[in-house]
């Protein structure tokens, strides 16, 4: 594997990690909210969160393009206020990866939180802990395995993300080209050997991530 190829793998890994950093706070919050609270319309939120799992990824990409494009609701604000572009930059890659891997994380984390007995949280409150402290010292540690498994799944999904990424970030070598996009382009260019090499790398990483994730999920049961 050449230097350029290692750089590509490095870039993909960095983007997947960055998307994980974005997914964690949002995902943990959503998962906890869905696990512990009940309110009218909860089913709607559950459905929306699960949507990217079943929608064609290009549809999610389309929605992101609409929101974050220079003329989109969020994109135009960012462009005019901070002169910051999202579409066709690494930011769009992180966004697309995060949008596609969030549902997987939320599912795993929610189940993990639901399996934590509320009696521990209640007792912690009688010992003087506020809600944030209860979450970080009781709920999260007791749900550790499931949350970690969710993170791995999200990471693996992010690494393999293609449809939304190509819509909203394009394929700019060195700047937004991720591993799956590079594989697609290699096939387009007729570079089959190159494509198979990258596919192999992709498969190895994904296999490792899912393997460990499954192991963690099994152990927590």
């Amino acid at each position, binding site marked *: 594997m050449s230097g350029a190829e290692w750089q590509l793998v490095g870039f993909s890994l960095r983007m997947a990690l960055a998307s994980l950093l974005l997914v964690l706070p949002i995902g943990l919050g959503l998962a906890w909210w869905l696990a512990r609270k009940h309110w009218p319309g909860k089913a709607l939120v559950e459905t929306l969160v699960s949507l990217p799992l079943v929608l064609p990824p290009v549809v999610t990409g389309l929605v992101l393009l609409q929101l974050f494009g220079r003329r989109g609701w969020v994109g135009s604000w960012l462009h005019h206020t901070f002169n910051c572009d999202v579409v066709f930059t690494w930011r769009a890659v992180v966004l697309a990866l995060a949008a596609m891997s969030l549902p997987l994380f939320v599912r795993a984390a929610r189940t993990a939180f639901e399996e934590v007995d509320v009696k*521990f949280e*209640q007792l*912690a*409150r*009688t*010992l*003087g802990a506020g809600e944030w*402290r209860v979450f970080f010292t009781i709920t999260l540690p007791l749900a550790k395995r499931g949350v970690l498994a969710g993170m791995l799944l999200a990471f693996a999904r992010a690494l393999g993300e293609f449809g939304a990424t190509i819509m909203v970030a394009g394929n700019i070598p060195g700047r937004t080209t991720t591993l799956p996009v590079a594989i697609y382009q290699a096939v387009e260019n007729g570079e089959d050997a190159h494509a198979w090499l990258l596919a192999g790398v992709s498969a190895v990483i994904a296999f490792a991530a899912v393997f460990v994730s499954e192991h963690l999920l099994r152990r927590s049961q």
Partner: protein
Amino acid sequence: MSTAVLTATFRKQFPGGPEIAVDNFCVGRGVTVLFGASGSGKTTVLRCLAGLEIPNEGEIKFGGEVWFEQSGRRHTAKSELFLPPRLRGAGFVPQDYALFPHLTVAGNLRYGLKELPAAEAGLRVAETLRWLGLEGLENRWPRELSGGQQQRVALARAVARRPRLLLLDEPLAALDTPTRLRLRGELRHWLRELRIPTILVTHDRQEALALGDDVVVLHHGLNVQHGALPEVFGRPANLAVAEITAVETIQSGKILAIREGLATVLAGTARLTALALDLPPDTSEVYVCIRAEDVILMQANSVQSSPRNHLAATVQAVNRKGSLVLVTLDCGFPLTAWLTQAACDELALQAGAQVVALVKAPQVHLLPFAR
């Protein structure tokens, strides 16, 4: 009860389920036993006091502090106040202890001591462990502890914070009998030393008698009697309390005459003399309640003795229960008596034997029929 430290009047309705309604529930400075049968709502009351459940309406006050206030009327400006558990300073020990599985014993104790500087917290932990006989267990995990040790760690964790109020839910129920009996004595000792107002939930009469100063009896979610333990258990206010506090003989009877504060009661075919205090004036039908431990048996020959009630009785059955014997008699109505094994042997009691049952008039309790 001199001064009430906590007063509560509230109602908690579980959707599609039971309702708990306590009225003027008062707790004094000592150990108050919350006594009742399983399912009477004792745990719910405790959890409402801890702040883990929110009543539908009512008020809970501790010292001068309002912990909960909610008027039930919806169309007036609701005065809603709910002090969350973390601000109440009430130590809570649930029936299954709920020790944090991911923290060591020391970690569990330290959890409630976050406001203290680290050094002081460490000292407090060591001191509490020592006091409860748990030295050396600082670094053990909850799953490595025996039932008795877990119970003590749960208590230690609640007590380390120096709470203003201690709430114990069936503290000995999860233990096997020998451990339970041993720990009961120790618990009594610790509670006396702590001198924190304590509410202790139990359905076990022996436990209540051993650990409590005052008792509140809970029946189907309602508090039906409160007062000093011996008084409530000795003089149940109504039939429900009598049944809950387990008076062994309850018999319907008819008042024949009342003279000079004494009533003559016809129970079955026997005549009894009882105190007629607190009876409404024109009561005629009553329940007669006699505790088994208040019945004395003697040989069936007439001897002058003080008890007003001499009842000729035939032994129906003799049942050994540990070091005591439960003797079932027929004296015109079914009567039970607790005797020591030695006494039983001396009287040579067996089914069919003729004896005389003696009951002092003050120990024959009369309860008007509930209307």
